[in-house]
């Protein structure tokens, strides 16, 4: 027999919560797509995220960032659903690659001007998808979703310093790729695992 077949008190969902959460649907779907690389899996992930958000809406602290909170739930859901969650690509952080020399060579002119000819839209997304997961996730949450370092650290469950170094490396690597220097210049980092599910022996 069930020990508890009904929840004692169904906590009310704060007014307007649904509408506010729905405003982040595209952003959540975009991240879910990057995480799962599969449309229907991404839809499921986002739906799970919404269900959990509504279920624990009463625990959301008004005045804090709802968007960051939703992304935290999404990442937690993703991690929990994966059997090999413990095998996040930590190793990318220990790589002694700062790309400084490569970037110096590549950014000799005016970097902004160089990127004017760079890929946009779907092609740019493709370039992002080719970054190591750890870098892309940090860069995406910072530059596409405009979240703060501390929020990203909570979402990704890594220290703040790691967030900053992943953003730094991700941006630099992306710059090299977009300016056509990625293959030779980023060869060391390009060998980092593309996907956490397929870690490479080191």
């Amino acid at each position, binding site marked *: *027999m*069930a*020990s*508890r*077949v*009904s*929840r004692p008190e*169904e906590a009310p969902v704060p007014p307007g919560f*649904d*509408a506010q959460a*729905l405003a982040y*649907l*595209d952003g959540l*779907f*975009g991240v879910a*797509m990057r995480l799962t690389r599969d*449309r229907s*899996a991404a*839809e*499921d992930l*986002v*739906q*799970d995220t*919404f*269900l959990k958000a*509504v*279920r624990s809406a009463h625990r959301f602290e008004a005045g804090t960032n709802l968007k960051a909170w939703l992304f935290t739930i999404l990442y937690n859901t993703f991690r*929990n*659903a994966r059997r090999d969650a413990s095998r996040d690509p930590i190793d990318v952080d220990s790589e002694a690659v*700062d790309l*400084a020399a490569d*970037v*110096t060579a*590549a*950014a000799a002119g005016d*970097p*902004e001007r160089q*990127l004017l000819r*760079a890929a*946009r*839209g*779907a092609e*740019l*997304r493709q370039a992002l998808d080719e970054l190591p997961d750890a870098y892309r996730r940090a860069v*995406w949450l*910072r*530059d*596409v*979703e*405009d979240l*703060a*370092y501390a929020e990203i650290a909570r979402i990704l469950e890594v220290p703040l310093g790691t967030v*900053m*170094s992943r*953003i*730094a490396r991700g*941006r*630099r690597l992306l*710059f090299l790729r*977009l300016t056509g220097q990625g293959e030779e210049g980023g060869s060391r980092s390009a060998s980092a695992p593309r996907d956490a599910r397929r870690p490479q022996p080191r």
Partner: protein
Amino acid sequence: MTNHTCREMAALVTPYVDGTLGPTEVELADRHFAACTTCGALLGAERAVRALLRDEAGVLREPAPTSLRERVQPGATVVAFAPRAVTRRPLWRRVPLAAAASLLVALTGIAAAGLLAPSGTLLAAQLTLDHLKCTWLTRGDPGPDPVAAAHEWREHHGWDISVPPSSTAPPLRLVGVRRCLFSDGAMAHLVYEHDGQSVSVFILPTARPASPETAIMGHEAVTWSRNGRTYAVVASLAHDEIARVGAYLQEQIR
């Protein structure tokens, strides 16, 4: 990077670009970046990439599909956790309210029978939503190949399920294999059609004690455990019909 100072300053490039440095650090950084080619290049590159990504953010995100938008609409979400609230808002326009309510009762019955303990009501509500959502979403689908679907499940989720194929007696048509929302997706949901009625088969990756049959308000559920899996068949069918369906499925799932 040639000296200690430069290495230290290079660490400031990213927070500098993101505008999170204090005024003292900004001043220090400004002075160094103007003089140092390496740091200047890093600064330019990061700043350019950041600007590009922010400009393109709307395109990069990809708009959420309409189907997803409908699935997470407030009405749909609320019914999952607060079944009593269904009278407040229209929900699932395509699903008769009475059907949703009585199915919920049937599922709660399973919960009470111990299969879905401990959080019975919550889970029952989730299963209801999933059942309604899936049966609606898969309506009219040609249906997957059972062998391929089982294989795909194994690939994606790491544990095996049996997917009984469609049959003529009983008249069952496999229309979908999905991940159920409960427990972070650790439950498979097979959707069949039986003479136009939806039949849901939920598979849990653990064996649980279950009462063999539950009948509440016209809904029938058959549950059993075998080889470390627990199965729950839920449908709005007559007693003898669901018994036949259950027997067929138990026969197929070995």
